[in-house]
């Protein structure tokens, strides 16, 4: 799937990363695969916490590293995967990732470990450490995901803000 960079921003706190997740979560459509890449502590789980809030999920979102996948019910089902401990792509088949994409959206941490599964739309976020609380977030989207995100005025506003949040 062809990906285009739609934003390259910085967040200055975990709360801002979470807020970005919430704005994206509100705009997501069923069948989306959200690839989350970046080192430990980069913000992938924090972002997903926000994503869940944007989907109306009240439960506490925690890292799925050991459980491999955690499932939440919201406006859409959220299937929060972590590929860190998986050794082969066939383990994703065992975890019913195809079913998950049909039932809701999949957010996968350490997604760069495997090629993305077949999905209706693909979003890729790369989290890099810029300073103690600052993170640089590169956002790429396939045309369909980009169109879905475009519909959100508040998200568009946030993504066009200068690096480091509102100045």
């Amino acid at each position, binding site marked *: 799937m062809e990906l285009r960079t739609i934003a390259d921003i910085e967040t200055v706190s975990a709360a801002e990363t979470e807020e970005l997740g919430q704005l994206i979560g509100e705009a997501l459509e069923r*069948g989306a695969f959200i690839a989350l890449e970046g080192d430990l502590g980069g913000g992938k789980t924090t972002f997903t916490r926000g994503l869940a809030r944007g989907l109306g999920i009240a439960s506490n979102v925690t890292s799925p590293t050991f459980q491999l996948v955690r*499932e939440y019910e919201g406006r859409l089902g959220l299937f929060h995967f972590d590929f860190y401990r998986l*050794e*082969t792509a*066939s*383990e994703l*088949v*065992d*975890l*019913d990732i*195809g*079913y998950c*994409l*049909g*039932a809701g959206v999949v957010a996968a941490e350490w997604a760069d470990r495997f090629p993305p*599964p*077949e*999905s*209706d739309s693909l979003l890729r976020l790369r989290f890099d450490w810029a300073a103690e609380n600052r993170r640089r977030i590169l956002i790429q989207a396939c045309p369909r995901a980009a169109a879905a995100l475009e519909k959100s005025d508040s998200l568009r506003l946030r993504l066009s803000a200068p690096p480091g949040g509102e100045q």
Partner: protein
Amino acid sequence: MKILGISTSGSTCGAALMRDGAILGCDSFPGARKCSEELIPRMERLLSSNGLDLRSPDMFAVDIGPGGMTGLKIGIVTIRTLSQVLSIPISPVSSLEALARSAPEDAALVMPALPCTKSTFYAALFRRAPGGAPERLSPDALLDPGSLPSLLSAAPSVQPLHIVGAAPDALRAALSSLIGPRAFFRDPADSRPTAVAVCEIAASGPAPSRFSDILPNYLCVTAAENNFGIKV
């Protein structure tokens, strides 16, 4: 003959109790992936509300797939364990054959289908004489739209085809272009593998097996097979 049947291959799980061909009760609950919490309590409630317990069935019937692997593992392991401990035999039932029974009574040609990935699906072909049970025309298989012409060649070419189950878009598009107005899609909400159909198939099927002979029919290569070369 008392049969306790379960189905855990789809997004909804079910348990059903049959005695001498009549259904005494059934229960459905969502979340095949999370059914480990609900499965045994629901089975026990179904039995106790009919004055029975887990030792009462003469036979267990279990959906062995294809379908969601997490749910299948939970269902099959639960029934195998009960069977081993209680010495009750098990009748394995195909999820697609159970799904075929939710087609309308007058549907002569039925294709049960369950999604796998975006472009692949599990499907088989069945025919049904009026008043009869679905008869298999093809084995359960993991297919993509390209394999449809060969699957359809097993069926009479003029009959309408009733597709039951959650047919992925790729399947719908391919069938519509292959056979157009002859394809009838049942609402997925009406058609899912049911524990009732699992009991019915077990009741009229071959003699049940020992727990150790009951294996899932995933049709997908699992990680274990890939990593360790173990054939399940």
